[in-house]
């Protein structure tokens, strides 16, 4: 009985791919009309994804050091066929994706889903591509799922059309097509040297590769890394990111904000698996690049946050800061720091998703051109002179919706700047504390760790300054005309995302325990490798 149950449970691994694929295909067949049916289908599927992800997370957490489920497609042995692997990291990313998907979809139901065709199908295919990329244990299959999620994201980025979106979308597509070609070069180089594309098998074979082949392998890995860093938006590869995200429609942008995390996921997974402590001569290959690149990305993002004049670009720049923070933290190569970086990633993805949605609600009634705010207004001293002087204006009440939006905005600001009491602060603390070696007395802290600390804290300050400035200009002004009309269905997803951040703060203990276990699993990939290849002996396997 238990065996039969286990057998049924193992099929859970493929459901996050099959379910959105089926629903998405069905929606395409339903055609242009019947919006409410498609909306209901999409909502049900997204909600089911959340439940599925929760179940997988529970399974993964109970499985110790090994992956909870290794699902062999077509039941071929791992080295011949493709495997799907559910471990803690994959389950965590799945949950994050599904929550964001549900929030973005709910938000779009108010009006955005009518702005173009096939929105619901695209969301489903996007979810399918993301799930597949997080689950797969095969390098080439990762490429295929990257293409699926990118193809859907092209459609989503262009959703609603208009010159700004098409212009930004053109750059986005061109860059990603070029990056896909690099992915192919990197993957085939690695195959040519190692003779396998299975990630676990690769990790097992890498220590035995020597001489010229090792050099070729590292070249392949570096090319592959470049691709992932393009997706993650590392400076100087991330100039496309703020423009594209700012131009996309808000629910699409909220969903896209997890896309940059796919690059981070791939770096986390592959770099720690292939070039972790057990990789022989190549151990730690490229770590300094990640650390320095991450620091530069945070710096660039910080400057962009300060310099930007409109809110959507501010959110885009925050994505850069968040990517840079995770990259740099992972680049330090310490288990504790990786755990903190994971918590930071979860918290910042939720916060940025909520921020994109709040922006749309807050900016709804502002006239075009009002975006040239903050810097120009302060520089030219406008605004002050137009201050109404009549007495009755003093006691004006802030309208209810604006107050709620203002509080949400403030929560986003606290989360992104990393201030107490919300989870952003806890996450930054969880990164900095193990890095500066608070627990290990007498151990010298590397210079780069100090640089990272300073940059991280400064970026928090800059985010706070920029968010405060924007907030004052939007919520602290004498309301012109009527306040924006916000429907419950639009505010609910924002509340959901922010409540989750609050939950992450209150339940920081269990969350951090999970993240640390994830980081342990990533830094000691032997459990992953054994789980995927049960019959493997270290260093075994034939050549190509």
């Amino acid at each position, binding site marked *: 009985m238990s065996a039969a149950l286990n057998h049924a449970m193992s099929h859970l691994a493929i459901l996050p791919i099959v379910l959105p694929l089926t629903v998405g295909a069905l929606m395409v067949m339903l055609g242009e009309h019947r919006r409410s049916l498609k909306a209901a289908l999409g909502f049900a599927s997204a909600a089911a994804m959340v439940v599925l992800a929760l179940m997988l997370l529970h399974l993964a957490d109970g499985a110790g050091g090994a992956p909870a489920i290794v699902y062999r497609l077509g039941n071929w042995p791992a080295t011949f066929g493709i495997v799907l692997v559910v471990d803690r990291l994959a389950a965590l990313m799945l949950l994050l994706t599904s929550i964001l998907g549900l929030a973005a979809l709910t938000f779009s139901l108010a009006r955005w889903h009518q702005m173009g065709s096939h929105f619901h199908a695209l969301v489903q295919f996007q979810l399918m591509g993301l799930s597949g990329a997080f689950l797969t244990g095969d390098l080439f299959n990762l490429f*295929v799922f990257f293409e699926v999620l990118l193809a859907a994201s092209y459609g989503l980025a262009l959703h609603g059309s208009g010159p700004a979106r098409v212009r930004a979308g053109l750059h986005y*597509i*061109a860059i990603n097509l070029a990056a896909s*070609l690099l992915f192919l070069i990197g993957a*085939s180089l690695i*195959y040519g040297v190692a003779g396998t594309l299975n990630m676990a098998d690769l990790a097992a074979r890498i220590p035995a590769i020597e001489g010229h082949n090792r050099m070729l392998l590292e070249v392949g890995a570096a090319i592959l890394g470049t691709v992932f860093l393009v997706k993650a938006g590392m400076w100087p590869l991330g100039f496309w990111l703020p423009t594209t995200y700012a131009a996309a429609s808000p629910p699409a942008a909220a969903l896209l904000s997890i896309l940059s995390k796919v690059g981070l996921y791939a770096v986390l997974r592959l770099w720690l698996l292939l070039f972790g402590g057990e990789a022989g001569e190549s151990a730690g290959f490229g770590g300094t690049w990640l650390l320095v690149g991450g620091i530069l990305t945070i710096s660039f993002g910080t400057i962009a946050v300060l310099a930007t004049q409109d809110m959507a670009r501010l959110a885009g720049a925050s994505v850069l800061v968040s990517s840079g923070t995770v990259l740099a933290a992972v680049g330090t190569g310490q288990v504790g720091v990786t755990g903190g970086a994971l918590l930071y990633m979860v918290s910042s993805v939720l916060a940025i998703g909520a921020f994109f949605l709040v922006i749309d609600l807050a900016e709804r009634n502002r006239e075009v051109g009002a975006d040239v705010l903050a810097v120009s207004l302060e520089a030219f001293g406008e605004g002050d002179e137009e201050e109404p002087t009549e007495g009755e204006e003093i006691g004006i009440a802030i309208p209810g919706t604006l107050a709620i939006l203002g509080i949400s905005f403030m929560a986003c600001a606290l989360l992104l700047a990393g201030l107490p009491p919300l989870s952003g602060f806890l996450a930054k603390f969880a990164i900095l504390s193990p890095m500066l070696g608070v627990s290990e007395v007498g151990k010298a802290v590397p210079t780069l760790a100090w640089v990272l600390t300073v940059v991280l804290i400064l970026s928090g300050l800059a985010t706070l300054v920029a968010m405060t400035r924007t907030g004052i200009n939007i919520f602290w002004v004498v309301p012109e005309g009527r306040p924006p009309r916000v429907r419950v269905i639009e505010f609910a997803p924002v509340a959901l995302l922010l409540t989750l951040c609050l939950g992450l703060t209150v339940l920081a203990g269990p969350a951090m325990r999970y993240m640390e276990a994830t980081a342990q699993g990533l830094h000691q990939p032997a459990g992953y490798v054994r789980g995927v290849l049960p019959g493997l002996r270290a260093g075994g396997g034939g050549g190509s």
Partner: protein
Amino acid sequence: MEILIALAVGVLGGSGVWLLLRPRTFQVIVGLSLLSYAVNLFIFSMGRLRTGAAPILEKGGTGSLAVFDDPLPQALVLTAIVIGFATTALFLVVMLASRGLTGTDHVDGRERDR
């Protein structure tokens, strides 16, 4: 054989990159196509170049990795061709939309001031 493949990959890749960096959308898409040819040839060559080898089995012989061609890169190339074809088609549509909405075929959506 090696020289021929290397030259083909190099020439296609070089022209592709050059075209990719040009300002007209048409040049960009031709550049991307050339680059994908180069990459496909490159993947193919990663299965080791060999002339006159049996596809999988010699007649009467037993299967051995040392004898037959590696079929996996060929499968990879096929997948890459299909995906590349689809994404190029999608890019073409976006290009046309951009041409229609902005009235120019410059990649930035506006002509550079001279």
